[in-house]
């Protein structure tokens, strides 16, 4: 994309970006109990990066976030497959999830799910896929 000089967006994004990313992480972790989840969280993170792309050009963004999004996709898939296949080691069917409650001193009652790990895979895949597509098409001259 063309380099544009957009003062308002550039100043706003320094603050906004963190809020968006933070919110997307919240949305992701809240998923099991409140609206949200890996898919929305991932899309929102991708949305934040897209906002960054609109503000700056692709090269600058690549310098800020030197990430290969295809590897992010692969990591996501590994998480999803790994969590699903992990169940086989305990002699239960593929994709069986377990959960437990842990009482932590400060945070109080926390529930832990293997489903969250699976959802983390979804999150990574969504970020990786969206950014791969947008960057690939965007880079094409």
């Amino acid at each position, binding site marked *: 994309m063309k380099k544009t000089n957009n003062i308002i967006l550039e100043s706003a994004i320094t603050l906004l970006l963190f809020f968006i990313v933070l919110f997307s992480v919240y949305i992701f972790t809240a998923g*099991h109990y409140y609206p949200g989840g890996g898919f929305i969280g991932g*899309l929102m993170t991708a*949305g934040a990066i897209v906002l960054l792309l609109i503000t700056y050009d692709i090269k600058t963004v690549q310098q800020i976030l030197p990430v290969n999004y295809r590897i992010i996709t692969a990591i996501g*898939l590994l998480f999803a497959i790994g969590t699903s296949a992990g169940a086989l080691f305990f002699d239960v069917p593929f994709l069986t999830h377990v959960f437990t409650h842990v009482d932590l001193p400060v945070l109080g009652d926390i529930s832990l799910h293997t489903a969250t790990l699976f959802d983390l895979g979804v999150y990574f895949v969504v970020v990786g*896929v969206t950014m791969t*597509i*947008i960057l690939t098409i965007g880079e094409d001259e």
Partner: protein
Amino acid sequence: MSYLHLAIISPLLFSVFIPIFYKKFIRIHTGWFVLPLPILLFIYFLSTIPKITNRQTVTETFNWIPSLGVNFTAKVDGLGLLFALLITGIGALVVFYSIYYLAKEKERLNTFYVYLLLFMGAMLGVVLSDNLIVMYAFWELTSFSSFLLIGYWHEREKSRYGAQKSMLITVFGGLAMLGGIILLYIMTGTFSITEIVAQSGDIFHHSLFLPALICVLLGAFTKSAQFPFYIWLPDAMEAPTPVSAYLHSATMVKAGIYLVARLTPVFGASSVWFWLVAGVGIITLIWGSVFAIRQTDLKGILAFSTVSQLGLIMSLLGVGSAALHYEALSENIFTVAITAAIFHLINHATFKGSLFMAAGIVDHETGTRDIRKLGGLMPFMPITFTISIIGAFSMAGLPPFNGFLSKEMFFTAMVRVTQMDIFNLETLGILFPVIAWVASVFTFIYSMILVFKTFTGKYQPEKLDKKPHEAPLGMLIPPVILISLVVIFGFFPNLLSESLISPAMAAILPSLLNAGGEFVVHISFWHGFTIELFMTLGVILLGITLYKTLPKWKRMYDLVPEKLSLFRFYDRLLEWSQSGSYKVTNKYMTGSIHSYLVYILAFFIFSLTVTLFWKDAFKLDTGNVSSIGIYEWVLAIFVVVGSISILFIKSRMTSIILLGAVGYTVSLFYVLFRAPDLALTQLVIETISVALFLVCFYHLPKLQRYETRMRFKLTNALISVGVGAVVTAIALSAHGNKLFEAISKYYVENTYEKAAGQNMVNVILVDFRGFDTLFEITVLAIASLGIYGMIKLRLNRRKES
């Protein structure tokens, strides 16, 4: 997983290590690492002989997909054991031979031995699986490994052609066989051969019996190179000679024979089976032997002779199936056909294996296999000559070799066909001994050509690339072992009769043993002055006469029109199917996204409308609907106005943003309907897709079309209105028809109970329907890689040019 399973898949497992051996021990020929495996397996299978001789079977089951009745049940009975011994025994000799045949400096040995082991494991799987689906899987694996081995010298055009041909024909047959297996399953409800055999009496009058029979036979005939499918085998001779000796004469082509033998208890009582198996077999026998004489390539002669000999065994199995119609075992004179089939199967493996190896030696040491260039090699390679002459005499059916014994039994079986009083054999039966006798004359002639044109006659050093000399010892040992078996089985045929032949017969004709008793097999040289003996004498006399006068009548072959041959027919068919499918595909694959969308959406409209009316599903139910509030009205008007105005917008940027606005409005609907998850998702999706559209459209050239108003297009209008109408109709009908309770209740009840979550949507995504999600993200990942690949590849190509 038992030792037996391990034995079957050990070649597959072992093949993984071959590349490591090849890389690490570059100085040692990789074949030496492979050799111990078939030897060990051979010994392992030998050790089961005592058990099998006592009429026991070894069965081990490994559950694979029990819910579908697909289990890896390995079963060793007489028939399976015989084949297992052939596969591992000949396999060991072939590996040994290949060590000297393939130079480690020149060849890619790692791939060769990986393919060879792949084949060995697959073949063991075919003959030792009791489950038809598992057998089918191994069956196709043999086709694939055969394809890879024929195309081993893939830089040669002919190798690629031969590999493709064998693949197309055998896989065609394999698929037909799969159809037959499924039909058998429909009839019997099981994939287990043992259980199907037990039910064979019940399915005889089933309407699917005949289709299943024909499908299964298609598989067997293509694999065993029967007429008219034999055309792949001569072209398969492009493979390295050890491969030809192993796959294309001793083992793989006998898989079809195995299948016919294995399923004889199921289908054998049918007259169609008798006529097809015996008829096709005997036609193949005479066809192969007649056309073998025309060949000038040593391996070509051997290929046609293999076709012919496979036909011989096939016809014996067909004739033997008639034994099922004669109950009493003691007077059952037709079982001799089955005895002969099994005995000849063993004999063929020994003499044809050694002949192939001898042909390989001639090729290796002189540089040619063309019999017009060869001649007078006897003084240079006396041992190879001895091997060849014994092998050829055995093939021609001369005493005192094993081929003589099985040929005599073959004549006996064919003569006895005339005594049968079923299937119209009283009248047509006489054809069998006549054709068999004529084919044997031709067999005699090509056997003589094979030996005497190569080793006697005029020595033509000027036509040879190398100065001929005897092969190294390592290349001679395997054929010498095989040829000594030819002699040993010739003198002591009863070594085999109790240990191998009788148990194998029990596996092919189990119903005859139901009353107890067993097959007594006794093979002897001298039966007195019988009709078979005179037939053999006739073959020899006429054969010698015709061989001597060969140049005079060989011109007859030129009368056969080249254009009408099956080989030409196959080439035409291939060309025609390729050009035909190109034409059809080019008609509708125009490369324009517009037409693809038209296909997809038109199909969508068509199929859904038809279903809707067919099932009489359209139903408008106005009861139980909530009132429409002011917010809904506002949003609906916004969506409608937004969508319509997109059509009239001239600038691209504006239409994208307008499209985004419509999407955001739709997500507000979700907010109204209290679906925060959907609303959130839709909002973010809209944002991302607008960004994506912007990025894409940024690259498009400024089209003139957008400057003026769009023209009206009837197709587009029909399609868009149609899609809208169908979706509306379905949405209304979905509300109108409440055929069963909504599934949402299950989720309401179980989301917290079973998955400890409170957000039902998310729990469905990651837990209840986790499989869907897993596949969806996989598809997403593949799609993104696809886009990346398409665009990057195009970029790179442009950079290069």
